Every structure is written in structure tokens, then in C-alpha cells.
């Protein structure tokens, strides 16, 4: 099957999108439905291990990520929206390729095959395959006039041995420019949001977050659009800067451009209300 016509994908939501960032999940589902993409949630998925499992026990982190790989049916790529989940899933796949004994042991433990050729990709890569031209044809609301900071946080950085992996750096700009928005590239797009230190050490994270928000305000952006749900949360909850601007999930802006009207439920979950900005966007006939 040509990748261009692929419409079925296994989908790994991850803990953030399933809970604190439910608005990202809802808007992603909406956008996918409009585009005719079928994101099929991985049945009985578990946490990818996140930073905590990787921090305290290597084989636990590997096992948690690998179980998700074992649940993915053959024949369709596994799509993640959270960049960190994506990295942990891909790392697990690489570890198992290099360690056939553990691979076999885990397969026996669960009685399921773990397909090491399974394609694990980010949703932005799905959009690139779908084609920006086709995406544009589906646009119902113009993003003309919207200036945004594409915020990737640390999500496009990875360890040197993974540098050559295909990734989605720059794709947020490509996609949203095709839909009419204008990226601001002079702000802090790649500065880490503080990750889990936001929970343990707000005194470290708040100045970092303020710097990021201030840089966006100074660059005269109207909003920040994030690739990562945890970044979105940290940028909102740890910001004490005087001027605050809305922080969107990438999927929310995408769904808006595709004509979504049921955004009330997403935006009441934001700490900085993005609705005044959204209402300025014009409908395309």
C-alpha cells in the first residue's frame, strides 16, 4: 500500500493526552476525523515508562515501552503525539533489536510477538505523508494573520546515536504556514520547559518558563504552539510573567484550521483563555 493512501494507524495517546491534556487528544481526534485518518487507540496501552522508570531502572523502562510495541497489530504504523513517548517507544525498539535475548524473553512472557520493524512515527509525520496540498484543501478557517512561536522544547533533541532518525523538526512551521499562519523564529523554540522539575522544583522552572514566554511576547507573537503536551502544561502553570499569551497544543490549531467548532470544551481547560484570539480568525468559504 502506498504510504500516501494509508488511512489506518495505531495510536498511542500516552498518560498526558489521556488525562491532563485531554483537550489535545480531543482536538487531534477531531482533526484526524476531518482528514479521513483513522487513529485506532492501542488496546490496553500502558505508560511508556516516562522519565521516572528510565531514571530508576533500565529494564523496567524498557519493559513498559516494549509492552506497547507488543500490542500494536501488524500492517499499520504506530502513531504517537507526545514526543517523549515517541522517543521511549523508539528507544525500546532499538534496544530489543540489539538484544535478541530480551526480545525473545519478553515475547514469551506476554505470548505476543514484538514486531521490531513496526514503524513508530509522530502525528506530524502522518500529516507530511498526507501532503500539505491535500491538507490545505480541507482548510475551513484561515490562519491568516496569526503569528505564532513554534515551540518544540527539547523534543527534537535526542542522544547522538539517534541523530540520524527521521524527525519532525520544522514540520510545525511547514504545516501551519501552509494553512496561513506566520511563524516567529526569534523566540526560544527549543529551550526545555523544565520537564518533571516542574513538579519537584518550581523555583527552578518558573524563571525558565518566564524566559520562554517573555521571548515570545518580545518577538510580538500572538501565541505559542507546542509540539508536546507536557510543555504546554508547564508553560501555562509555571508562568508568572506579566504579559501572558495563549499556549496552544499543535492539534488544537490544526483542528481549528480544519473548521472545528466544538472547541469550547478544549479551551476552558486552558489557564490563559485563547478564545478571544480564536474568534478573530476568519472562515474560508
Amino acid at each position, binding site marked *: 500500500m502506498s504510504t500516501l493512501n494509508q488511512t489506518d494507524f495505531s495510536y498511542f495517546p500516552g*498518560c498526558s493526552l*489521556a*488525562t*491532563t491534556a*485531554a483537550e489535545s487528544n480531543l482536538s487531534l481526534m477531531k482533526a484526524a476525523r476531518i482528514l479521513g485518518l483513522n487513529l485506532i487507540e492501542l488496546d*490496553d*496501552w*500502558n*505508560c511508556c*515508562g*516516562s*522519565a*521516572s*522508570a*528510565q*531514571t*530508576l*531502572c*533500565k*529494564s*523496567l523502562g524498557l*519493559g*513498559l515501552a516494549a*509492552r506497547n510495541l507488543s500490542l500494536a497489530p501488524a500492517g499499520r504504523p504506530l502513531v504517537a503525539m507526545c514526543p517523549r513517548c515517541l522517543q521511549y517507544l523508539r528507544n525500546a525498539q532499538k534496544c530489543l533489536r540489539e538484544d535478541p535475548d530480551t526480545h525473545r524473553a519478553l515475547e514469551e*512472557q*506476554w505470548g505476543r510477538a514484538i514486531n521490531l520493524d513496526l514503524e513508530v512515527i509522530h502525528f506530524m509525520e502522518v500529516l507530511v505523508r498526507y501532503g500539505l496540498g491535500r491538507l490545505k484543501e480541507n482548510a475551513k478557517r484561515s490562519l491568516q494573520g496569526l503569528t505564532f512561536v513554534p515551540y518544540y*522544547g*527539547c523534543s527534537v*533533541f*535526542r*542522544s*547522538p*546515536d539517534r*541523530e540520524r532518525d527521521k524527525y519532525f523538526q520544522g514540520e510545525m512551521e511547514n504545516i501551519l504556514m501552509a494553512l496561513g499562519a506566520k511563524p516567529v523564529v526569534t523566540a526560544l523554540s*527549543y*529551550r*526545555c520547559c*523544565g*520537564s*518533571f*522539575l516542574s*513538579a*519537584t*522544583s*518550581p523555583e*527552578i522552572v518558573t524563571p*525558565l518558563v518566564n524566559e520562554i514566554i517573555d521571548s515570545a511576547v518580545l518577538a510580538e507573537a500572538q501565541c505559542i504552539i507546542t509540539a508536546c503536551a507536557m510543555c504546554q*502544561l508547564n508553560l501555562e*502553570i509555571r508562568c508568572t510573567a506579566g504579559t501572558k499569551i495563549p499556549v496552544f497544543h499543535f492539534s488544537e490549531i490544526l483542528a481549528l484550521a480544519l473548521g472545528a467548532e466544538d472547541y469550547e470544551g478544549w479551551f*476552558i*481547560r*486552558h*489557564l490563559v483563555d485563547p478564545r478571544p484570539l480564536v474568534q478573530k480568525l476568519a472562515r474560508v468559504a
Partner: protein
Amino acid sequence: MSPTNLLAKADTAETAVPAEISRSLASEVMERSGTNLYRCYHCGSCANGCPFIQAMDYPPHMVLRLLQYGMREEALGCKTIWICVGCHTCSSQCPMAINMAGIMEVLRHMAVAEGVAIAKPDIFDFHEEVLRSLERYGRAHKLGIMWRYKVQTRRWLSDMDLGIKMLAKRKLDLRPSRVRALEEISQLFKCYWRESS
């Protein structure tokens, strides 16, 4: 806190370590991380880029220096390894492509396995609470994690206003989302060493 003067510290008798031990620590870390830490020529790019440098006791490349000197206690007992969130900003700026975050990860594993006094116990406690949640539900239940973390660290009042705001915004689910095949999850936890359950 400002980075400790490493040379002054290495001069004291109690931290001076024979050369063989020095090589064994460095080679253990190199083997486990798959990274040659002798490639580091201490240009400091990692320290310049690290967003968390202010909270560290040693800049990242200094931790490599500790390893090169064989200063086990200092390397495994420093704050830096726990402050590092693995954002890989350092690795992406390193002219020698050293996987700095990978080394930090190995050092954390070694610190836990060897029962070294953890320099940032609050961060360790947080990771433990996340793992308890994963063991119980297979997924992270953030309200439960934060609640038990507050009990553990007795920091009741910090972030109370934020917690209420997040509950009001329905960002903290009261009930956890859980995995059905929980026995598959608990099997995975058998490998994990922990102080208390």
C-alpha cells in the same frame, strides 16, 4: 549554587584515589553508557547550553572529570545527575557528540544500586511516586502522584493554589485511567529494587 572548585577538592587527601580505581570507574561508566568519556576536552558547551545549570553543583563536563579522576562518591552523590532531565540540549551542542544525558542516566542507576545518599531526595521521591502509580494502574495518575509526593515531602502548602486551579480546570482526574492486564505490568516491576513499598 556555584560549581565547586574541582581541583581544590581533588587535592584533599580523603578524595585522592589510586589510578587503577580511577580507570575502573571510568571504564564501568563507559561500558554501561556506550560513550567514550575521554572524548570530552572540557570546552564547556554542555554547561553553556544546559537550562538547569544554576541548580547543579557540578556542570555536566565536570561530572565527566570526576569520573576520569575516579571520584566515585562525588560523582554518584552529586546533585547534577538528579537535576538532569535528559533534555539532550547538551548532547546536541557537544562538538564531540558525547551522550551526556545517557551518562547521567547510568550514574543515577549506579547511585540507586549502590545505595549512595541521594543528593536530591525530593526528586528521587517524585520518581518513586510515579513508579508506584505505574505499578498500581499501569498509567500515571497525576493527582495521586502529587498527593502522595506532598505527604512524603511534607510540603503541603506549596502549590496548593495551583492544585485547586487545576482541579477546577478538570486537568487533574480524580479517578485513574488503568490498564486491564495489570498482571503484565506487575511482572515488569519484579526487577525493580526499592527501599520501601
